[in-house]
């Protein structure tokens, strides 16, 4: 293998992506999503 460090980055990247996906979906331990898409009513 030309650069052995590359293989060590794979679990770090996977863990980061999984964490970000979890945060976006569930919003972490307090259950509030980071991004929330809501329908905006007229004159709201």
């Amino acid at each position: 293998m030309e650069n052995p460090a590359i293989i060590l980055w794979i679990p770090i990247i996977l863990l980061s992506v999984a964490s970000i996906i979890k945060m976006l979906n569930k919003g972490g331990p307090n259950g509030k999503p980071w991004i929330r898409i809501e329908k905006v009513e007229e004159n709201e």
Partner: protein
Amino acid sequence: MSNHLALRSGNPALQSSTFRNHLSSVTDGTMTLSGTVNKTAISLVLVILSAAYSWTNPAMHGLVVPAALIGFVLAMVTVFKPTLGHITVPAYALAQGVFLGVISMIFNAQYPGIVVQAVFLTFGTLGALLLAYMSGLIKATENFKLGIVAATGGIALLYFINFIMSFFGSGIGIISSNNTMGILFSGAVVVIAALNLVLDFDFIEEGAEMGAPKYMEWYGAFGLLVTLIWLYLEILRLLAKLSSRR
């Protein structure tokens, strides 16, 4: 008090009982997450400055063993006297920086470039585990803590036996060997060291929630620093083993 505190952290410096022993002595403010983050950042800057100085200054190379011993003494003082953390933790960071600078220089001379890779991998691991902890992907449950404590204790025992055996010109081959088993062993140690970070985050969060005294911020920073230094050294060792097979 919840059973959350029933088990101690994998890091011998970080125990739940530590907070109980100091809760009664709150006089000038309480421990906060931001305060601990700031003190961790200060400690890391001191380690990096000290390491850079000892790497570039040949006069410091003879100080590697004294620096390691002084670091050990300062760590023990911090564990048994956390109120002195504002003095002992920065001093510990400086002493460990000297040690890490010389060790890193030796590794880099043998395998050019691996120190930069190890530094980035260490901070990458810290960031990934912080994200995993914040998102709740990895939770510091009682079983998780028990597993990490047991695994860390096993590694410490193995390293201690290896240290004793080294006096007789022998050693446990798997620790330094670059064969497949040696690499798998190093990989497992890196994973255990990385998971100790979760216990450190949990310890710091718990201290802030419980309203531990202000000086425990230095203690939390110290715990995180100990784990990060261990993680860096293990990543360095793993990269050296992988590089030696090229």
